[in-house]
């Protein structure tokens, strides 16, 4: 029997300018095949990864933002967004995509995946992880 570990993926880069955001998302999806306690953190420019209304037709790159909506189906249901990073960029949680997951233990009720947290709260969650992967 394998022990379930807490994995956190920390995202700190905006999408499209570099490949970090897409790479992180791919690793998360691959990692989801293993039975682990997975969470994502969006910090600094990483908050731009989950902005609502992304349209990449003009830059000739694949818009992968809709993939974040599929995370719930892979049992990736904890997306921590740092409030201070949003505020520093003039954003609020309303600027982000509505990301949800279906709770099969609660009549498949749709529940929000995004957890808006303060720096101090996120620091505690991060300190509690077994493995942290940074992008």
């Amino acid at each position: 029997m394998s022990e379930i570990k807490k994995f956190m993926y920390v995202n700190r880069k905006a999408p499209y300018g570099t490949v970090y955001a897409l790479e992180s998302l791919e690793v998360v999806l691959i990692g989801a095949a293993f039975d682990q306690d997975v969470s994502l953190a969006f910090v600094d420019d990483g908050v731009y990864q989950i902005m609502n209304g992304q349209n990449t037709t003009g830059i000739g790159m694949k818009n992968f933002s809709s993939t974040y909506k599929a995370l719930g189906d892979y049992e990736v249901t904890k997306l921590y967004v740092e409030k201070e990073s949003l505020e520093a960029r003039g954003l609020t949680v309303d600027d982000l995509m509505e990301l949800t997951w279906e709770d099969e233990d609660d009549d498949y009720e749709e529940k929000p995946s995004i957890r808006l947290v303060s720096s101090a709260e996120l620091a505690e969650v991060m300190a509690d992880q077994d493995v942290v992967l940074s992008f």
Partner: protein
Amino acid sequence: MLHTVNKSPFERNSLESCLRLSAAGSAILLFEDAVVGAVTGTNIADKVSAALADREIYVLGPDLAARGLDQSKLIDGIKVVDYGGFVDLSVEKSAVQAWV
């Protein structure tokens, strides 16, 4: 938990983010270009000093030396480690978050 920072605080926000998001009791290691954040007199020195109240901060000696930064200029409370010390910290602490 061990946090590592390897970017200059005057070019990137990695050190500031690390200071903001590291919990009390965790350790922070500055290496490569981040060692410039370990000395006194910079515009981030006050934040680094404040973090020392509840976190340990280490700096990699060979990276200080390579940049001509004298250990006598380090912020009080920052400890110098060598490569072996870096390895020890990585092993001792439960997890590592690299603020790349």
